[in-house]
């Protein structure tokens, strides 16, 4: 089925999220939508999927104008969407999830589960997936859950498949498998829209590439463009993709973690006997697929969760057992993984967010009283120094773009007297232009002799930023390797396979 979008315009108040976007996707083609976060890719797809109504423009399927009032209409018309975050019910089985919203029943409303099972088996067999229709979704690995999403879309006879940032949660190996599934789908004549901001993936599978910037199509690119070409199209200027840094100059500061173990309330071990040392002036990147204990490790470092055993010392001071407040007062800067949940108060102003974790003492609080003029001045300087694009320091951070929000967090954490910086996914959901800036600031912090721990699921970031890379799998350290370790080795390590010659955990 041929999909065509004509002059799609979608406005949110004064902001034009999509400005007369034209797009044609042919059957049997993988069409990449490339753009920074906030460029309008997802908005466009939500218009196509019936979640938003376009202010102008039309959607055509095989040359015929269609109006979707909701995802139901879109699905019925043959459009399927694989969301970045799976729309599955964890406690349902695969078959139940697949039939959800499209339930076949015997008389009297009894569900026809057998039909759904058969459908799952058929589709799985067609593409060579191994998926048990009766497995509970929550028991499945992430890569398989994604396949369930794909099966779900195919079970409705989708001819146009939209993949919205599908690789964010996958290991490199799972990503490769997904790529081959996409190719197979293409062979069957499906039209595929692949939304991403990862350049490598684009070049690997795309037949055509459309680049979107600030809500408009800025051009088409050929799949054999270089990363630098694609990135500059996305951002609108030349972008430095590598991080320049000198060899580390170690300082006296030192973070030593020994035998750290964290369990959840049920006793499941999440961080399993982890020991490592980060010296001042170096960046240790903790790499791994999301959900392998990195989050818990970072929370233990800050004192948010209490380890069941082990010790964390910063310059000889034991941090385990202390409150978050007292850990922060030791000069720990913390960039949380999810800035919106853990790093910022959306309805606070930029200025208020800049003092969020600095209320225990001056300069912003004296005798329990806020020092607003000091804060204002500091906020103005921070906005300037960190290039936070805003209407003013009184703006609510919820109204900033992801990159600017992250700069607020960074400005707050880096302007303290640091003895340690822990940054979780510092560039997630951040536009390419800001990534460059954030990386630079992290390297500057390292060069001031601060030990830096960066937690990242992006291999590119790990290699570019790290002096050493520590790979975690199921709560354990698979190995700590130099930053120039080849990609495929790191990829295998992320799948839990230790490599010869790497430093043992």
């Amino acid at each position: 089925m041929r999909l065509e979008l004509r002059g799609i315009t979608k406005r949110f108040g004064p902001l034009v999220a999509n400005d007369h976007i034209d797009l044609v996707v042919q059957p049997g083609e993988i069409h990449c939508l490339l753009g920074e976060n906030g460029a309008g890719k997802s908005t466009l797809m939500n218009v196509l999927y019936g979640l938003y109504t376009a202010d102008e423009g039309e959607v055509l399927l095989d040359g015929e104008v269609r109006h979707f009032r909701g995802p139901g209409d879109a699905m019925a018309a043959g459009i399927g969407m694989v969301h970045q975050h799976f729309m599955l019910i964890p406690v349902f089985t695969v078959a139940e999830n697949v039939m959800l919203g499209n339930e076949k029943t015997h008389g009297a409303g009894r569900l026809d589960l057998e039909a759904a099972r058969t459908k799952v088996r058929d589709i799985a067999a067609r593409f060579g997936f191994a998926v048990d229709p009766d497995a509970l979704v929550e028991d499945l690995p992430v890569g398989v859950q994604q396949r369930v999403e794909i099966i779900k879309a195919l079970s409705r006879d989708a001819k146009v498949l939209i993949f919205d940032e599908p690789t964010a949660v996958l290991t490199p190996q799972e990503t490769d498998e997904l790529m081959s599934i996409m190719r197979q789908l293409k062979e069957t004549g499906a039209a595929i829209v692949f939304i991403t901001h990862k350049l490598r993936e684009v070049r690997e599978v795309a037949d055509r590439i459309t680049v979107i910037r600030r809500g408009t199509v800025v051009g088409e690119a050929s799949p054999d463009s270089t990363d630098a070409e694609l990135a500059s199209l996305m951002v609108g200027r030349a972008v430095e993709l590598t991080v320049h840094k000198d060899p580390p100059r170690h300082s006296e500061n030192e973070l030593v973690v020994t035998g750290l173990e964290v369990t959840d309330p049920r006793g499941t071990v999440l961080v399993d006997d982890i020991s490592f040392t980060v010296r001042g002036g170096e960046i240790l990147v903790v790499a791994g697929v999301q959900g392998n204990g990195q989050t818990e490790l970072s929370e233990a470092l800050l004192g948010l969760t209490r380890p069941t055993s082990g010790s964390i010392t910063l310059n000889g001071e034991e941090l385990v057992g202390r409150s978050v407040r007292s850990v922060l007062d030791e000069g720990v800067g913390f960039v949380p993984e999810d800035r919106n949940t853990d790093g910022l108060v959306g309805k606070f102003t930029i200025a208020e967010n800049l003092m969020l974790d600095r209320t225990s003492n001056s300069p912003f609080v004296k005798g329990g009283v806020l020092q607003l003029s000091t804060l204002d001045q500091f906020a103005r300087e921070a906005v300037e120094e960190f290039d936070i694009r805003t209407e003013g320091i009184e703006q609510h951070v919820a109204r900033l773009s992801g990159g600017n929000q992250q700069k607020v967090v960074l400005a707050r954490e880096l302007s303290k007297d640091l003895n340690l910086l822990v940054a979780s996914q510092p560039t997630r959901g951040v536009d390419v232009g800001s990534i460059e800036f954030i990386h630079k600031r992290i390297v500057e912090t390292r060069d001031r002799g601060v030990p830096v721990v960066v937690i990242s699921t992006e291999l590119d970031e790990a290699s570019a930023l790290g002096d050493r890379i520590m790979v975690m799998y199921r709560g354990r350290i698979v190995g700590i390797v130099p930053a120039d370790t080849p990609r495929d080795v790191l990829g295998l390590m992320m799948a839990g396979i230790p490599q010869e010659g790497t430093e043992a955990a």
Partner: protein
Amino acid sequence: MSTPEEEREQQDVERAESVQTTATGRDTKEVDDGARWREAFTRAVSGGWVVSLGALILAVLAGSIMIAGTDEAVQEAFGYFFSRPGDTFSAAGAAVGNAYAALFRGAVWDFRADSFAMAIRPALNSLNFATPLLAAGLGVALAFRAGLFNIGGQGQMLMAAVGAGWVGFALDMPWPIHMLVAMVVGISFGALWAGIAGLLKAYTGAHEVIVTIMLNWIAFYLLSFLLATPGLLQAPGSANPKTAAMRDSAIMPDLLGPRYNIHLGFVFALLAVVLVWWILQRSRLGFHFRAVGLNPHAARVAGIDVERSTVYVMLVAGALVGLAGTTQVLGTVTTGFSYDIDAGIGFDAITVALLGRSAPFGVLGAAILFGAFKAGGSVMQAAEGVPIEIVLVVQSLIVLFIAAPPLVRAVFRLPQPGARRKPRREKKEAAA
């Protein structure tokens, strides 16, 4: 693989404000289902002024219809509506006009009075009614700002009355020491009573709505017991469940002499407005309250002790409601009180806080409005025979409309913020 999922889910329920759908359409995230009521809560307690105003207008319009519908002349004219519809409308207009004129006369300015001194009486009367509403409304609003729903105003007022009242009639001290001691004791009782809910919420996770409601009943029956037991609160030589009168040295004096119904309590309530504003906007304590209210996760990561904040905010909220109870027994009903001394103010305070968008000066305006309703409602009933219940219905409608901002926006064709939302990005993305 498990991030501490269960804990997360629990936290999600408590999430006061996840991320707003920004008008920019970027980062379109939203709270998950578990936190949906929380979002509605946040919206109801801190929505726009326009919604408050719209809700007020709609409620008053609905009130007009009820006034017209219950008016006998209108009903009579409606009997021959199809032959002379004009009669019905003019009767309705007269009924509504007279009713609201009476309301105005009873609440703001008595235009039938001979002298300025008499004409101004209703306005001062309204302020007097507004006094406990204001203090209690501030208590509820402050808790709202910290993400807590304090339904325990009744219990906190009753306990404050117990404390202040006992000091007021049983002890003997010179004025103003006596009054101040009684106030301090009353306010402390209110604070501690709410503090129980804060402690239970912070350290056991018990929901404050349930705890505060139960504490209302406990306070009510405790007071009933105290009032029925000679030697405790019951006035000596009496079999009625009522305390002795307050001693003169404990009474809040009239501000403008005995001709006017307004006492020193109003000044204390006004001071409380400024104090609450200062706490919220200028103090670390208030900064912590607001941070916890809007995003407890970020507050915790920023080193704010969320549990301690919860206890503190309930203490302060209870103290404010306690002030309301104190002004009742030391200023308004000084002849001894019974278990109905709260007069429903603990619940009206919720309405006041909602209408005032949980902002101190907003609460001031809302409390005065509701004080005016109370003062004017009885005059309306006496003069025009309009049932006072209509005023109560109007008050309830205001809350109803405020709780459903999209309805108000639709009626007034205001833009809906964030029009359509897409589901929030799941946090536990890799839970496999």
